[in-house]
């Protein structure tokens, strides 16, 4: 995952359904233009922040799923490679496998020309070792690509959250500042 950020998104663009938070150049102008008073604008911004957080939760869950999927595919590729390497030698592959929790049994795998792959939805298909390799590699590439897109989405989302949080702080500070000035004027 690249640490350096890609070109910063200009204010006003959205990304894959996530609206961008518009950057406030000047608090006074923003409040006058939106016609909201300080409290109304603060609650609006808070609401936006909450919505962003909800989307973040969803994206994080997707990311976790993908991150769990990738080692699984790696394991499958490993096994197919092991079977293929045994093919030429003429020896069977002897292995201990788990029958049930804590119970293992021994299996002897003769010349393995094909493997069965679990495709999900209670479907399992038989493939030749080469086909299985190709399919698993393709799945791995897709998973990695999706993960990258997801990571960029999350970066964008977190940027929008930060912008919103900073705007909230600025509106609040501006309000405190205004009140201070009013108090100062009253005393003079």
């Amino acid at each position, binding site marked *: 995952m690249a640490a350096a*950020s890609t070109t910063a998104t200009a204010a006003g663009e959205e990304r894959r359904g996530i609206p961008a938070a518009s950057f406030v*150049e000047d608090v006074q102008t923003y409040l006058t233009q939106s016609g909201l008073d300080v409290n109304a604008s603060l609650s609006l911004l808070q609401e936006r922040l909450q919505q962003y957080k909800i989307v973040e939760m969803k994206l994080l869950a997707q990311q976790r799923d993908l991150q769990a999927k990738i080692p699984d595919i790696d*394991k499958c590729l*490993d096994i197919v490679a092991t079977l293929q390497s045994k093919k030429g030698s003429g020896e069977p*592959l002897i292995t201990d496998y*788990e029958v049930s929790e804590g119970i*293992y049994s021994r299996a002897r795998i003769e010349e393995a020309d094909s493997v069965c792959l679990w495709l999900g939805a209670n479907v399992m298909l038989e493939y030749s070792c080469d086909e299985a390799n190709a399919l698993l590699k393709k799945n791995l590439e897709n998973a990695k690509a999706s993960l990258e897109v997801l990571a960029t989405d999350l970066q964008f989302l977190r*940027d929008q959250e930060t912008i919103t949080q900073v705007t909230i*702080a600025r509106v609040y500070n501006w309000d405190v500042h205004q009140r*201070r000035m009013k108090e100062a004027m009253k005393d003079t």
Partner: protein
Amino acid sequence: MQQGEGTEAQVTWEDQQNINKFGRLNNRFHELEEEIKLAKETNESLEDAGNELILLDEDVVRFQVGEIFTHMPKDEVESRLESMKEEADKKLERLEEEKETILAQMTELKKILYGKFKDAINLEED
């Protein structure tokens, strides 16, 4: 982010981008710390496995591939373990390097942001 006491300093789009960048780097930094922890654990396990292998008398070792334990001759297991260790070491090195780069970038940004906003901004871990 801490709310300042009615700060005078205006936040420009450039400042906002710096703050965003700091946030991104900080997130990546925490992810890296997790990944480094896992990588170190993997390295340790591989070390332990290597040590156990030396102590082992038998010729056939049950080597875990995926969910099953295949019977493999000791030398093959040895060479597999060696290459796994190499890979793990390289990965750890890469991660540590990335961590250093990120820390350096974060320090730079802290200088810039504290310089402009002083007390009004808080970039430390709570």
